[in-house]
């Protein structure tokens, strides 16, 4: 069943990625089709996660590959909040290829199948893995918004004659949305880390590389909020967000093997 749901989800995300590419060249039907593909793909992936949740006795996303599957679902879900609006289709050009690739990686690691078990308790996994993933998905979206901000700002600075033929979201809107996303994500990461550290201390376990990288990520994104409060915005804040995203990639893709093991 899970197998049956994975392929349509991947195909729909892939179609969306291609559709957004087509929409960037010739705005219109391709973009609309891509948005529908994202919606349907997300629903299919929701069904996939539901099957995993029903079949497994407990929290089924305790492995890094399974958590990557959940992470993709969160990122696409967050994108869908804005992505249905036409100016934000450009964001899909970044988000959907990433989602498709990560879903393939999740499958390669066995994260889309059923029967994965973890020796951790459900409550701990839901609080720790769930909150950290929500935060990382939020940071990914904030980084995508910041990248779009820098692209739009560059177009304005270059005085591109085509700027109004392919309107993008306004600079102020992108800046505000990125900030709001981080405002929600940082507390989620803080709580997720606190739950994880609490267990680490209680069981006298060692701090691994992923824990350190996650803490550094928390520092960078918290610094983002502090700098925003100090008046940083626009281009400078966007660069900080992109730096934070590099750490998200490291935390999400490079280091997790050791931590989940």
């Amino acid at each position, binding site marked *: 069943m899970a197998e049956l749901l994975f392929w349509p989800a991947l195909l729909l995300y892939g179609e969306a990625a291609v559709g957004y590419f087509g929409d960037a060249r010739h*705005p*219109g*039907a391709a973009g609309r089709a891509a948005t529908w593909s994202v919606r349907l793909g997300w629903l299919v992936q929701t069904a996939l996660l539901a099957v995993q949740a029903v079949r497994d006795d407990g929290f089924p996303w305790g492995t890094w590959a399974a958590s990557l599957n959940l992470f993709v679902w969160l990122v696409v879900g967050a994108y869908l909040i804005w992505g249905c609006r036409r100016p934000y289709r450009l964001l899909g050009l970044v988000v959907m290829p990433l989602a498709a690739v990560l879903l393939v990686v999740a499958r390669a690691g066995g994260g889309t199948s059923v029967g994965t078990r973890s020796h951790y308790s459900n409550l701990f996994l839901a609080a720790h893995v769930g909150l950290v993933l929500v935060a990382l998905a939020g940071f990914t979206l904030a980084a995508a918004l910041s990248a779009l901000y820098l692209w*739009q700002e560059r177009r*304005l*600075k270059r*005085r591109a*004659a*085509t*700027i*109004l*033929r392919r*309107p*993008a*979201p*306004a*600079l*102020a*809107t992108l800046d505000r949305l990125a900030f709001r996303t981080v405002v929600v994500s940082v507390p989620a990461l803080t709580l997720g880390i606190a739950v994880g550290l609490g267990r680490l201390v209680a069981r006298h376990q060692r701090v691994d590389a992923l824990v350190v990288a996650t803490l550094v990520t928390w520092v960078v994104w918290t610094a983002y909020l502090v700098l925003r409060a100090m*008046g940083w915005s*626009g*281009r400078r804040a966007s660069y900080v967000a992109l730096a934070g995203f590099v750490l998200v990639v490291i935390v999400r893709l490079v280091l997790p093997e050791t931590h989940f093991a």
Partner: protein
Amino acid sequence: MMRLVLVGTSHHHAPVELRERVALDPARSTELATRLGEAVCLSTCNRTELYVAAEDADDAEQRAVAALAALEPEVERALYRLRDQAAALHLFRVAAGLDSLVPGEGEILGQVRAAYDAGTAGPLLHRVFRHALHAGRKVRAQTAIGESPASVSSAAAALAEQVFGDLDGCDILLIGAGKVSGQAARNLRSRGARIAFVADSKTDRRRIEDELARADVVVSSTSSTGYVLDAATVERARRGRQLLLIDLAVPRDLDPSIHDLDGCYLYDIDDLEAIVAETLAGRRSEAERAESIVSAEADKFHEWQASLEIVPAIASLRARAEEIREQELAKAEAMLGRLDESQRRAVESITAQIVNKLLHLPTVRLKQAAAAADGVIYAEAVRHLFGLGEEER
């Protein structure tokens, strides 16, 4: 059968001096439409057109021409006259903004709707105008023809939206008050921005700096020979906030190096004209897609109108077939009387199916012939072959 007749003139055929003499306000448009019978009068700054539905197309055309010539005799030589499918296609193109001075301008769709509401439309005009409004909406929904600005002033406002998004609460500092800068300011205001201050040549420089500290958009158009604002002044006054500066003056009012400041976006008249040229080119390429949408909608209308010619013949044919079926069933009553109720229903059903199957293909072919303009010939042939209407004669 009702025919559609169009008589009118537009910016393609008549200069403004002539068009203004046949331009009609809504009350006079309604009055003229009422006088012509089933009619709609579309009068905008670029066109005055009369759409009339009548059995006698020649007579309707003459009356429409006379009505416009009564307003201004000279207009007669600048009138175009179209009928049926050509008239419908023209109206669809008008509603889609494809016949406008600026392709894709959005105002015309509202004007077509207002004219339709104010006219004295009957079944044919109801159909053609509803179809035209649908075509206009479809073109706007499925193409980007009307999305980009077509003038320097609207381009300036659209740029402000690219920086600030919603312009509600944005403050505009207007330096000088030329015609184009006034239009730009009006355009910004129509999108929610507020004109915070208007500076002229007598305004104290310090006051301009004070206002600059609060402004989000600066629109400048003075006849000054030097820069009115330099980069240092802007950097000092804006305190890190984003600022869009529109310089419409020649020679320029605003120091070009302002654009290098972080968060400052300076556009001069050449930049804006390049944007407008680009968006107009985009509109023209979108117009090709829009033309195909409009053409498809016009074909649908034509099929509907053509089917009107054939509908009476099809209805007569089916009625004749049903009559024969019932007569034959009545003749066989003696035999059918021995059948029980369910068997009788089965016989009724079988005979009805035979009639339907026999008539299905001729009906389809008749409709196809109507769409291909052979409808009248085929309708006559059917009437002749099946002796339709002979009983009445």
